[in-house]
C-alpha cells in the first residue's frame, strides 16, 4: 500500500484516497457546439500512457479535497510537488 502525499494533509495511506483518472480534461465550455465524436472523446476517451501521467486524486476519507499529481504508471511513484 502506497503512501500518497496529500497537499493538505501530508503523506497518508493509499486507502484514504480515490482515483479520479486523467487530469486536465476540462468540461467543455459549450457541449452543444461539439459534434458527437468530439463529445464522445470528452465522455469516454482518456490517455493511458506508460510512464508519467498527470492524474486527479481525491482524499476521500481525509480532507475531502481534490488535487492533481503526476505519477509514473510503471513504478507507481508520485513525483514530488
Amino acid at each position, binding site marked *: *500500500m*502506497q*503512501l500518497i502525499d496529500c497537499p493538505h494533509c501530508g503523506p497518508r495511506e*493509499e486507502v484514504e484516497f480515490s482515483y*479520479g483518472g486523467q487530469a486536465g480534461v*476540462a*468540461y*467543455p465550455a*459549450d*457541449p*452543444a457546439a*461539439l459534434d*458527437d465524436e468530439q*463529445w*464522445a472523446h*470528452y*465522455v*469516454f476517451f482518456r490517455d493511458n500512457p506508460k510512464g508519467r501521467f498527470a492524474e*486527479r486524486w*481525491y482524499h*476521500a476519507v481525509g480532507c*475531502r*479535497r*481534490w488535487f492533481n499529481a503526476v505519477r509514473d504508471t510503471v*513504478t*507507481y511513484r508520485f513525483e514530488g510537488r
Partner: protein
Amino acid sequence: MRTTTGGRIDRSRTLTFTFDGETYTGHPGDTLASALLAAGRHSIATSITLGRPRGVTAAWAEDSGGLVQIEEPFPEPMLPATTVELYDGLSARGLAGRGRLADVPDSARYDARHHHVDVLVVGAGPAGLTAALDAAREGKRVALVDEQSEAGGSLLGEPSRPAWVGAAVAELATFPDVLHLQRTTAFGRYDDGFVLALERRTDHLGAAAPKHLSRQRVWRLRARAIVVATGAHERPIVFADNDRPGIMLAGAARTFLHRYGVLAGREVVVFTTNDSAYDAAFDLHRAGAKVRAIVDARTAVPARTAEACEKAGIWLLTDSVVTGTRGVDRITHAMVGTDPIQCDLLLVSGGWNPAVHLFSQSRGTLRFDETLGAFVPGEPLDGVTVIGSAAGEVVPAMTLWRVPGPAERQFVDLQRDATVADIEHAVGAGLRSIEHVKRFTTIGTAHDQGKTSGVLTSGIVAELLGVPVRDTGTTTFRPPYTPVAFAALAGRDRGHLFDPERYTALHDWHVGAGAVFEDVGQWKRPRYYPRPGEDMETAVLRECAAARTGVGLLDGSTLGKIDVRGPDAAVLLDRLYTNLMSTLKPGLVRYGVLCGVDGMVIDDGTVMRLADDHFLVMTTTGGAARILDWMEEWHQTEWPELRVHCTSVTEHWATFPVVGPRSRDVVGAVFPDVDVSRDAFPFMAIRETTLDGVPVRLARISFSGELAYEVYVNSWYAVAIWQRLLAAGQQYGITPYGTETMHVLRAEKGYPIIGQDTDGTVTPQDLGMSWVVSKKKVDFVGKRSFARPANLDPRRKHLVGLLPLDRETVLPEGSQIIAELTAPPVAMLGHVTSSYRSAELGRPFALALLKGGRERVGEVLQVPVNGALVPVEVTGPVLVDPEGARRDG
C-alpha cells in the same frame, strides 16, 4: 533419536501429544517435527497425487515433506510439522493429500496493529541482530521481527548459541523505541516501506493459551528503511527417488541436532556439492552417528577437509553423485551408481539460496550468481537493504541441479509430486518462459511456494533449453512468504464488525415492535413488522392496505440528506440536476434527477428550497455519500468559483413519512399550529412549525402516490415525535410499515428505485420521465449525451409495467422477457426489475426494462419462470391512481 545432552529444549519437562493416533512425548522447545524425529519417526505424510510416503526434509518453513493436519485443540490444515511448536495435548495427523478445514466456527481472536518505525529489520540472525542494535544505538525507532521462537537465526543450528546473542537481545530490550517480536513472520513487502507480518502469539501454548490474548496478530508496519536479513535456504539436488523419508537437507540435520537434541539417523550418507555439508557430517559423527560416506560431486575437495574425513574414518567419494535410493517408509540405501550404501539418513546439500523473497516481492530485481548457483539481489532498491546470507554471503557451491536418471522418479516439487519428467513435458510442449513452466507443471504453487524447488526448476529448464540460468530467470516472488490464515487477515473485521452498522434514532423502537430488518447499504432498516402468525407476504399486504386506505408510518430517516448553502447554491444544482432548481420558490419542494456526463441516471430525490441561498437535497439511501462526493467533485474541479458549501446532514434529520387518506387527520392533530388543509398546505409545499419548542419541518412529499406528509425533526427528538404520531393515529389504525411495503407502494405508482430499476444504462427518457429534463437550460451534466444517436434509438429499453395474466405468479426479479419460444438463441427483450404482490390490484405486478417498451403497451409477452412460460401483459409503469388525484388530495 534424542541425544543424551544438548539442544535448546527443556528436558526437565515432558509434553505429551498424539500423532496419527499414537501417543508421543517431547519437551518444551521442540517442534512437532523434532519430537517425531526424536521418536525415530521420519514418515509424516503421504503425497497428494502419488500417495508416496514423505518425511521431514528441512527444519523450518522450507520443509516440503512433513505436512500435518492439526486436530486438537482446534482443526487447522496443512502446517509443516517443522513450524508447529510442541505443546501438551497437541493432536495431529500426517496429511494424506489434502487438509481439512474446521466445521465449527473458530472461537479464537485475531487482531491487527499498526506500527511506524525508522528501521524495520526482518530476521534476528547474526546479521539482523547486529543491524537492529546499530540502529537502536543511533536512537532510531526500530522494529525487529523474526519468525522463530527465539533470536539467533542460523546460530540456533550451531553447537551452541553464542552468548552475544542473548546480550544483544537484552540490550535491545532497554530501548523504549525498539519493538522486538519473535514468532513473527514478515510475509509481504509492499510499496513505500509497508510490510505485513504475522505474529503467532498463543499457538505454542496450546490449551493453556490465555483467552484474553489474540491468537494471531497482523502487524502493519510502515518503515522508512527496511533491512532484509532473512538468511538462506539450503538447496536440494534432484536424483531418482529423492523424496523418501529420511532424506533431508544437511543443515536441517545439524539444526535438529544442536537446537533440538535430536539425531535424525544412525547411519548417514551425505551428498553435497559444497563445503557446508561437511559441518553436518562431522557434527553428526561426533554425536554418535555412523557417517558411512560423503558423496561429493566436485572433482576435488579442500585438503583440510579430506584429512578431517580420513581422521574421522569417513569414506569420501569425490567426483561422485547419488543416483537413487531404496526404502519404503524410510530410506535404506543410497545408490552411487550401482553401489548401494546402507543408511537411514541421507543428507543433501546443493548449495544455498539467499532468501530474497521480501526483497523481490515489490519490484526487487534478481541476478543469477554463478559461483553460488543461486539468485541474489540485483539493482538496489530505495529504502531496502539486504544483508548477510540473504544478500548472497553464503558458501559457494558447484552447480548441480540434477543427476542423470529416470526423470519420472526425480522429484522437483515434492508437495506437487512434480518431477523432472513434468518439466520435460512442459519444455517439450514448447514452453520457454519459466512462468509458463510453473503454470504447466504447478511447481512452486503448493504450500511452500517453491522455497526449495523454484531455483532447481530454473536450473533444470535452463539445462533442457540449453540457455544460461540468468536467461531463464525465476518466477515472481509474491506475498505471502508463508501461508497466512484468512482468520488472521480478517482480524476483528468479521461478523457484525465486518462493516459498520448504522441505526436510525428509532432502532430500539423497531426492535421492540418486532421488526424484521434488512440491510440497505450499512443501514439496518425495518423490512416489515410481522404480527403473530404473519409471514412477510401477509404482513406486507396488510401494511400496504393500511397505507392505501387508512394511514401508515415509515421511518425514512436513512434517506440521504445534503445541506447545500451559499449564494451560488441554485447555480450548482441547476448544473447538476436535469431540471431547473433555481426557479423553485423557498418553501417548496421539487423532484429531481441526476445524470452522469453520459446521460445515464445516477440518483434521484426531492430538493427542498428553504431560502434563496439554502437547499436541502435528498438522495437515495445508498447514494448519500456518492452524491455528496459528486457535488464536491464538480464544485472543486470544474466550478471552484461557485460560492456554495455541501454538507452531509443525513443523521441530523429524522424523517417520517405519514402516508394515506387519514394522514391529514394525524398530522393536523399532532401539529395544531399548521393549517393542513388542501389549499393551505398543497402538494410539494413545506411548513415550518414547532412542537413543545422543538422545530419541526413538514413537507407534502409522496413516495407512495397517497396523500402524505414527511415529518423532519432533529434526530434527538425522533422517538418523541414518532410516539406522538402513533398516538394520534391510533384511532385510524395507524400502521408502521417497512421497506418492503414502501417498495410495493412506489412500484404500483411506477416510481423507479435508482440502482434496482436502473443499472447505469438508463436515461430519464428511458424511465418515461422526459418531463424532468429541462428544455430551458442551456446545459447541465448529461444534457449533451441525450442527443447522441444511441440515446435516441427507439429500441432502447423503457420502464414498463407487467401484469402476469394468470394473476398469480410473482415474477422473479431478474427474469428475462421474450416474445415467444424459438430455437436458441431466443431473443431477449428485457428483464424484470421489481416484482411484488399488490393488495391494491389484487394480483401480482412487476416493473421491467423492455426494448421499445412504450410501443409494446398492450402486447402479451412471455417470461420464463421455473421452466414454464408465464404470459404477461405490458402496461404503462403507473398502475395505481395514474391521475395523481390521491397524492394531490
